[in-house]
C-alpha cells in the first residue's frame, strides 16, 4: 500500500481549474519533492491531500484511507502550511503542549518529545517566551515540531525551510532525512530546488494544474538530452517554460521539450504531442495526441 495515492484528482474553483487529473503514487518511507511555479496548484493539492479542501473530481488516499474520511486522515498526517499555524499569544512550549494534548498524546511523553525537539532545534532557551517575540525562523521551527510531535506516518511540508538561516535549514533537512529513515513519508513542497535535489527520492513538477513531469532527480536531469552538468533547475525551467512565444516573440529554448507527464520524453521524430504526451514507443498519434492517453 502506498503512503499517498491519487487518481485523476481534480480541483476546480468555478471556471478555474487549479489541479487537473493528478495521478500520484508516493511510496512509504520516501520524500516526494513537489515542485511548481507560483499558482501551479501545489498548495491546493496539499489542501486536498490533508482533507482541508474537497476534490472536485477524482480520488486520493493517505495510508489507504480516502481523504474524505477526515478523522482517519488527521490521525496519520502532520502538516506544516507555508504560514506556521501558531498562536502569537502562547509560548512555544505552551503551543506544543496544546497540540500534543489535542492529539491525545500522554502528558509525560509529550513533555519528553517537546524537550527533545526543542533541544534539536536549539529552541530550549526560548521555549517559554511568547511566540509573538519569535523570529520567522523560530516560528517555522515551532510549526515543524508541531507537525511532527505525534510522529505521523505522512508529513506534508509546505516550504519548510522558508525564513530559516542556513544552520537551521540544515537541521530541518537532516530531520527530513531522518524521518524517511524511520519509515515516515514526506511530501515536500518547495521552491528551493537544491533542497529537493538533495532530499527527494521522486520529484513531480506541477504546472498550471498538470503534473508535467515526474521521476527521480537523476532521471529527470538525464532525460534532458543535454550536455553534462544539467541540473534540476534546468529541468524545472524547461518544463515550466511558457507554452508559446515569449514577449519578444521567440520561443524559449527547450520549451516543451520535456513535456511528457509520465517520462519526460519527446517523440523520436522530435515532435511533441499537442497535449505534451508521446506514447510508450516514442510516437505521436496522428491527431497530435500521445497514444498513451
Amino acid at each position, binding site marked *: 500500500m502506498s503512503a499517498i495515492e491519487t487518481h485523476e484528482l481534480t480541483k476546480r474553483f468555478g471556471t478555474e481549474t487549479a489541479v487537473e487529473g493528478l495521478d500520484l503514487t508516493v511510496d512509504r518511507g520516501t520524500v516526494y519533492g513537489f515542485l511548481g511555479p507560483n499558482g501551479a496548484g501545489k498548495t491546493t493539492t496539499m*489542501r486536498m491531500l490533508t482533507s*482541508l479542501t*474537497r476534490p472536485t473530481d477524482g480520488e486520493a488516499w493517505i495510508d489507504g484511507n480516502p481523504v474524505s474520511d477526515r*478523522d482517519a486522515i488527521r490521525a496519520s498526517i*502532520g*502538516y506544516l502550511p507555508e504560514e506556521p499555524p501558531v*498562536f502569537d499569544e*502562547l509560548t512555544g512550549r505552551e503551543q506544543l503542549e496544546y497540540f500534543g494534548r*489535542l492529539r491525545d498524546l500522554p502528558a509525560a511523553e509529550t513533555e519528553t518529545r517537546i524537550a527533545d525537539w526543542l533541544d534539536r532545534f536549539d529552541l530550549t532557551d526560548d521555549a517559554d517566551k511568547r511566540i509573538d517575540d519569535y523570529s520567522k525562523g523560530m516560528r517555522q521551527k515551532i510549526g515543524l515540531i508541531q507537525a511532527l510531535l505525534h510522529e505521523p506516518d505522512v508529513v506534508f511540508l509546505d516550504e519548510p525551510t522558508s525564513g530559516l538561516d542556513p544552520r537551521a535549514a540544515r537541521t530541518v533537512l537532516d530531520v527530513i532525512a531522518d524521518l524517511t529513515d524511520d519509515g515516515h513519508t514526506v511530501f515536500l513542497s518547495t521552491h528551493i530546488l537544491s533542497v529537493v535535489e538533495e532530499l527527494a527520492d521522486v520529484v513531480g513538477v506541477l504546472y498550471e494544474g498538470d503534473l508535467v513531469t515526474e521521476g527521480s532527480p537523476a532521471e529527470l536531469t538525464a532525460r534532458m538530452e543535454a550536455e553534462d552538468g544539467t541540473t534540476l533547475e534546468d529541468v524545472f525551467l524547461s518544463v515550466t517554460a511558457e507554452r508559446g512565444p515569449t514577449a519578444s516573440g521567440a520561443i524559449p529554448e527547450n520549451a516543451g521539450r520535456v513535456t511528457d507527464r509520465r517520462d519526460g520524453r519527446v517523440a523520436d521524430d522530435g515532435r511533441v504531442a499537442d497535449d505534451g504526451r508521446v506514447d510508450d514507443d516514442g510516437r505521436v498519434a496522428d491527431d497530435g495526441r500521445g497514444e498513451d492517453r
Partner: protein
Amino acid sequence: MTRANRPRLIARTELRRRWRTTKDNTTQLLAMAFAALMLLPFSVGGVFGAYLAGGFVAGNETAPLIEWSRMAFVYGWISVVGFGGYRAYAVALRPDTLDGLLTTVSHRDVIGGLVLTELALWSAVFLTVGSAAAVAFAVGAGSLLTIPALLLALCLVLATGIPAGFILALGVRNAGVRSRLLSRLRTLFLLLLGVGYLALIFTNAFASALEPLYRVLAPTPVDWFGDLAAMGLGIGASPLRAVGAVGFTVVFAVAAIASLFRLAEWLWYADGVHVTHEIERSDDGSPWFGGLSRVLSQPVFGVVAVDWKRARRSPLSLSFALYPLIVLAGPTVTAVQTGEIGTGLPLWVLISGTWIAGSLFALNVVGQEGAALPVTLLSEAPERSLVVGHVVSGALLIAPITVAATVFSGVLSPHSVPVVASLGASALVLSAASGAIATGIGVGFPRFDAVSVSRSTKAIVPSVFAFAIYSVVVLVVALPTVIAHSGIAGHALASVVGVDRFVIGLVGTVVSTVLACLVGVGSMYIARDRVRGHRLG
C-alpha cells in the same frame, strides 16, 4: 483525551489567548475598565431595581406579572441571540490558524470549543450580575425559591441563545461564502446594518423593531423561560411550562449541536466563491485626470492619483475618517423627525466635511506610505510631493461635497442667503485647508504599522493621538465660523454690535480663514521639514 475534553481544552486556550491579548493592549484594557466603570452604576441600579421589582411583585395582585416575566425573557433571549450572533460572526467563527486546528482535531471539536468560549465569556458577565439581581429580587419578593429558579432560567437563556446566535452567524457566513453577490457587497451590507442599528438607537425605535420578532417567538417554548423564572412567586406561573422550558433546552441543545456541526463543516470546508478583481480600469487617461495632470506637477499628481485609486479599491481602510459623521447623526435624525432643518445642521455639515477632508489622506503622510516609504523617500523632493499631494487629494475630493452640502442645507434652513454665502465660503476654505492642518500633526505622531480595520482587513491608519489633536485643532480653527453663524450666538453678537447677521457671519469666516491659513501653512512647513529629514529605522 475524550471527545468532550477537546472542546474544553480549545475553549480554555482561546480564553487564555484573549485575556493575554487584552492584557497587552493598554488602550483596550483602559476601554474595558472605562466600560466596566460606566456599567457599574447600571449594574448596581439593576440589582436595586430587582429588589424593588421583587417588592412590587410581592404586593401586587392585579398586574399581569406573569405576562411581563414571559415578555422580559423573550426579549432577553432575542438580545442574547442578536449580540451573540454578532460576536460569533465578527470574532468567533474565524479562529486563528484554522488549518492547523482542522488537521489536528475535527471541526466538531473546534466549533464546540468556540461556542464554549463564548458561553464562558457571557456567563462570566451575566451570571455575576444575574446572581446578585436574583438574590435582590428574591429578598424583595420574600421568596427564596426564586433564586434558583431565576438563575436556572438565566442559564437556559444563555445555553440556548448563544448556540442560536452561532447558528444564525454560521448561516450568514455560509451564505456569504457561497454567494458572489453577498461576497462582493459584504461591506455595504455591514455598513447598512450598522446605520440601521444606529438609526434604531437614535430614534428610540428598538422595541418597535423587535416587536415582530417577539410576536413570532411568543407562542414558542422561548416564552416558557418566563414561567420558570417566576416559579415560587405565586403569580400564576405554569409548572408545566417551567418543566417544558428545561425539556425544550435539552431538545434544542441536541438539535443545535447537530446544526452547528453541519454548518461549521459547510463553512470551513467550503471552496467559497472566488471574487476575482477584474483588470482595473486606469483613470489616468480620463479627461479629468488629464486636466489634473496638466495643473499639478507630476510627482504631486502621482500622489493624488494613487490616493484616489487606493481609496476606491479599499474604502474600508479609510473607515476611520467616517467617525466625524457621528456628530452629524443627532442633528440629521432631528431634522428627519421634525421635518425641519434648523440653523445648526449646516454648521454640523461644515464641521464634519472639514474634519473628514483633512483626516482622509493627510493625517499620516509618512506612515501610510507603508512598504513603499524607502523608495518614496529616495525620490526627488518627496517632502513636496507627499505633503502637497495628500492635501490636494483630500481637498479635491471632499471640499466640493462639503460646500455643496453646506449650502444646500443652509438654503433649506432659516439662514438668509448672504449668511449662507459666507457659510459656503467658510466651508470651502476650511475643507480645503484642513488637509494642510493635518499634515504637521500627522508627521508628529505617525503610525507605521497596519492595524485591523475589520476582521479581514488591515491598513495603516493615523494614530489615535494624531486624530485627537487634529480634531481639536480643526474645531478651534472652525470655532469663529461656528459662533458667528450659529442661531443664538450669531444673533446675540449682531444685536450687541448693532450690525447685520451677515456681517457677523463674514467676520467669522474671515477669522476662521486667517486661522486656517496660519495653522495650515505652519503645519505644512513642519510636515515638509520632517519628511525631508525623515530617516528609516
